[in-house]
């Protein structure tokens, strides 16, 4: 680590992206899918209530978007800080 400051900034940016991603991860699965489901009963996706849909299908789609968005964002960040392979 020749440049400790720049690597710290890179790491701080990474932590920020991870935190935001994990908040979305939690809200869409544990939140919409389980804890908030009784409150969302009025909202529907087709024949299912919103919470049911998130629990059985929707959360998976969110997980997929999160992983690819993270990979894309981090590849950009790697280049910005010049630490890509």
């Amino acid at each position: 680590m020749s440049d400790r400051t720049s690597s710290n900034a890179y790491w701080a940016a990474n932590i920020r992206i991870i935190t935001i991603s994990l908040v979305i991860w939690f809200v869409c699965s544990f939140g919409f899918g389980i804890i908030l489901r009784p409150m969302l009963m009025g909202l529907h996706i087709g024949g299912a209530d919103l919470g049911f849909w998130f629990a059985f299908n929707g959360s998976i789609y969110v997980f997929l978007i999160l992983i690819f968005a993270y990979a894309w964002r981090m590849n950009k960040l790697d280049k910005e800080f010049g630490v890509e392979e």
Partner: protein
Amino acid sequence: MDQFTLNLLVVGASFVLYIGIAIWARAGTTAEFYAAGRGVHPVLNGMATGADWMSAASFISMAGLIAFGGYGTSAYIMGWTGGYVLLALLLAPYLRKFGKFTVPEFVGERFYSNTARLVAVVCLIVMSVTYVIGQMRGVGVTFSRFLEVKTDTGLYIGAAIVFAYAVLGGMKGITYTQVAQYCVLILAYSIPAIFIALNLTGSFLPQMGIVGSYEPGGVSSGVSFLAKLDSVLTELGFTTFTAHTTNTLNMVLFTMSLMIGTAGLPHVISRFFTVPKVADARASAGWALVFIALLYTVAPAVGTMARLNFTTTMWPAAVSGNALDGEAVAISAFDTDPKLSWVKTWEQTGLLIMTDLNGDGKIQYFNDAPLQAPAKAAEAATKALVDARTKAGLPEAADLTAPEAVAVNGAADAALADLQAKLVAAKAALTDAQGALMVGGKSVADRGWVGNEVTKVDRDIMVLANPEIAALPGWVVALVAAGGLAAALSTAAGLLLAISAAISHDVIKGSFNPNISEKGELLAARISMSFAIVVATYLGLHPPGFAAQVVALAFGLAAATIFPVLMMGIFSHRINKEGAIVGMLVGLVFTAVYIFLYKGWFFVPGTAVYADVEANWFFGISPLSIGTVGAALNFISAYLVSSVTAAPPKHVQDLVESIRVPRGAGAAQAH
């Protein structure tokens, strides 16, 4: 061509394919054996990870679990997919950058301690062996059902196939075989699902069908599919499918336990050592989830549609109206109606049992849960009286409730009379319960029913019998057999590799003989792999009675030991050797003890301290969900112990810095 020949041809062809790939992808170096030479494309690696991860349980059992479990089973769907987010964000890229071969190796170097490495090896072996037993069992059972050989013979064939490609090819052979196995299993799962979705909902995508409208045979019914399922279940006295959980805390902890357990399973983590770059490790987790999602988003549709199909088979009127407006299915229909011939097929396997309790020639399927306790009590009271009469040397009685049933030498025997009184009371209680249980606005007694006449439905038949229920062509049935085998074999191979790498790399090279040559280590890896296959085959032939329960332990342990220690190793400079070891041990002991309290000490039957029912759980937390609490205790104790002991040495802090940036991963792999 008959079904048996067709099964043989399709399964045989898939095996020829796997062996061909194994010969093509032989491993020549340890890097190839442990990590496929780090040259696997991220998309292919994702596919292989999918096959590795999706076991016989995902392929065969999950949809059945959903079918009879309802909304609460979504914990499996979220838990077994959400873990990949944690892998991609928190573990995979950094462990790939670290650039070694096994999970214990990282633990050993990051916490500069061979003790920590060995604790990790022990956790890994316990988890992997547990899993492998289930897979070998799955291979044997699938063989015996579709290829008419004994379960044991099936197991030997399966073990020989795994032996051929795992010992020859190591991770390289396994990875490319798993790519082929993934294709087989996903086709086998999707084709019946698409046909059934078309049949019930008019939508060919199962994911759309489950939220779509109910259109049996293409005729619109004006209600949604889920509403139809709920109304049929309610009518027959079952809980609705969509009813919310009664224990939110437990469901949250269970889901979390499956997620962090998934992220902590060594055979899944080691998949990310096989890709060329750190950036590939991030994307590969995404590709793995794409391929897993193809099955996991379909499973809820397969489960719910199978449940409705099964129920309307029992109550034909339910297809277009109320179940109880028509008659229950007649037993004779199973012989005469070719569409129902699958019932006979599966009754022969003993996985489906129907008993005409009231002798009316029809099979009434309804929820008789309130009758089960009084029915059991009446049965026990009958048995007590019969046993007492036999002991007294009396002949069989025509009517156990008649006065002469308790007469010895013309006079009533006090002990027998007492038993008879208990029997009369138990029978009266059962009759009361039958009078009190209302189904569709009328009591069970008034309907002339005795109890639920579908006395056993094994959940597994929901997927295995699907093509027959939907009357699909024979080659689809054969494909499902090949798919079940592909799911079980691919997972078994991945687990066996994780075990053999831990033995040859972490124990032999790491502790006993660090100077072992490349060739020597490769030979050691192959020998330990062979040894692992022999042990797994033996355990598959003689499964410990607790195999199913140990799976809970495997996930709990992964969640409470491996995941926290890896995460702290990456995200903290300060967690030291003492903290990591104490943390892992606290997580391990706490989780194992809580499970043992309800399941018996080391699963020995009869040694459980509490009965495993919700009323006995601390704060309503089931032993299946306790891994989350174990993980939290691991984090807390590791932090506390680390903060009162010396910081890790400089070279370890530098290691933490180096794994956090992607550049230089290529160099790190050289030894």
